């Protein structure tokens, strides 16, 4: 009772990274609250995934396994989740901010009248005081809003569970050295589902390769001719991955075959205005800067102190990108929680 429940999503028979990241985060929260972590697993033929969840700290895996649940559909998944939360009364419930989590979690929060905070970038335990009352050990749900221009800390003083969604890659994923001794608790699917829960029918599904979408990215790490090779672009992908961003490029880098055209930024590529733009080995010609100079913050890395890109940057780093990018990754890993 009053534990933390993580909704664990699967994709093609495997647990999604975001769910394991949430399990990892839930361990910190559970330690602060002295409670246990439980997982909710819904699908078909997913029972064997429970072992992996024990490695991430799940004491109990609530399992709803049924052919009707093979693919995500809102109504049956929501009915099961709502029934489980009513029964188990978790104090906290976490969901990945995926197309599934962002469809399911609001439906559940509405049925339970428990608040839900979207796209949290940070979750902490802390106290809260308002005019009438003091609250101990609430979940601080910290999230950007307003197009990333403000950061709000949201709390849920009275209603339970305190619900939050988190995007993939925001939290770290780390298995335990020794798995906990967990167990499966089967959910009686047919006692919960009504015929009307199956009203929406999936007619077709096509899962494709991930589309490159640098336009929607809040953080972009862009490389130019100075990156030197296709292989060396991996450095930029590494930095983008740890920061949760995307990789962009100048035309010279695209023309040299270092990288895909879909990532070209500038007059003949896409125009971006992310929160943070990190430019690596790009000189800063006008045809390029036309596509990125409205970024909220620009960091330039170029070994030429007179490169024009440094003039429009908020932070100009004069140096070799091959040394600086690894330092940034290392420093980020040390300093982020």
């Amino acid at each position, binding site marked *: 009772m009053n534990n933390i429940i993580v909704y664990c999503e699967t994709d093609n028979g495997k647990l999604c990274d975001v769910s394991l990241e949430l399990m990892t985060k839930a361990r910190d929260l559970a330690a602060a609250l002295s409670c246990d972590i439980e997982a909710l697993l819904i699908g078909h033929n997913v029972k064997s995934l429970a072992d992996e969840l024990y490695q991430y700290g799940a004491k109990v895996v609530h399992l709803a396994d049924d052919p009707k649940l093979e693919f995500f559909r809102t109504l049956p998944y929501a009915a099961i989740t709502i029934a489980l939360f009513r029964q188990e009364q978790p104090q906290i419930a976490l969901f990945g901010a995926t197309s599934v989590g962002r469809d399911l979690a609001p439906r559940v929060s509405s049925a339970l009248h428990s608040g839900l905070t979207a796209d949290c970038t*940070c979750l902490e335990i802390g106290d809260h005081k308002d005019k009438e009352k003091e609250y101990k050990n609430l979940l601080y749900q910290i999230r*950007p*809003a307003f197009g990333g221009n403000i950061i709000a*800390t949201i709390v849920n003083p009275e209603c339970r569970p305190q619900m939050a969604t988190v995007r993939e890659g925001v939290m770290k994923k780390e298995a335990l050295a020794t798995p906990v001794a967990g167990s499966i608790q089967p959910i009686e699917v047919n006692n919960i589902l009504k015929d009307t829960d199956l009203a929406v029918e999936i007619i077709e599904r096509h899962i*494709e390769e991930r589309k490159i979408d640098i336009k929607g990215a809040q953080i972009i790490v862009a490389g130019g001719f100075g990156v030197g090779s296709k292989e060396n672009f991996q450095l930029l992908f590494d930095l983008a991955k740890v920061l949760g961003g995307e990789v962009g490029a100048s035309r010279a880098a695209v023309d040299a075959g270092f990288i895909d055209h879909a990532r070209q930024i500038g007059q003949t590529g896409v125009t971006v205005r992310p929160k943070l733009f990190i430019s690596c080995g790009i000189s800063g010609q006008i045809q390029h800067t036309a596509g990125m100079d409205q970024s909220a913050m620009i960091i330039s890395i170029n070994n030429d102190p007179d490169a024009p890109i440094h003039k429009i940057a908020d932070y100009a780093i004069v140096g070799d990108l091959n040394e600086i990018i690894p330092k940034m990754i290392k420093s980020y890993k040390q300093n982020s929680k």
Partner: protein
Amino acid sequence: MDKKLKIVVLAKQVPDTRNVGKDAMKEDGTVNRAALPAIFNPEDMNALEQALRIKDLIPGTEIQLLTMGPGRAADVIREGMFRGADGGILLTDRKFAGADTLATSYALAQAIKKINPDLIIAGRQAIDGDTAQVGPQVAEKLDLPQITYAEEVLGLENGRITIRRRLERGVEVVASPLPVLVTVTASAAPCRPRNAKQLMKYKHARTLSEDQQAEPNTYAVALDQREYLRIPEWGYAEIGGEENGYGLAGSPTKVKKIENIILQAKESKVLSGSDEDINGLIQELIASHTIG
């Protein structure tokens, strides 16, 4: 083809957070929210277009916009009417203020019950609150199925709607009985422009409050005669329900703290590639929530 439908399009007026140019920035590098223009939430435009396409297919279909907000949100309804909607309702009441997504959904759901539509189309997400929660929550409050991230309505026959949805990594085609709530994503077709005839027809559409605030003018006379130019305003008195389900009282989430992000360093800082410089920079970026 099907019988004519009644469609409600949910549309929100939002500050244009996507175009925070350096001009909308304050001295300290934070966004001047008041300086951002109020616009029709972009994905709600995509939602309106899907409704208009259904109306093209099934003549006689009626599209009503529903928006909750302050008096000036009537602009959203006029904009929708200029593009082909038949009318709209402004949900406005002091009691509705300070709502989180649950209290917002409660108000919208109460109003929708009164309209009793066959189909509700919303945007996926509003660009200010950025939660994408209102659509699914309204569906739950009305006990209706939901189809999120819709990209195109593919068919509408025998009381069933077929829709292509865009997921992170692919597409899915689903079918649902009506009534249903659909949320539309930005990759759907853009909204058609204003229509000159509609613009002429609805140019002077006003809420009663707008008329009362305006200088006395000749339109007031015309309005008395032309009912379709009156944009209704609904408050608690019109939609009823539980008083403490609305606004701040009906909101389980509370904003504890808001920090403004410093988007711009005041001047260009030149750094060396030394460990100290890089470490200092990363710590600054984390402290300002630019990364992390």
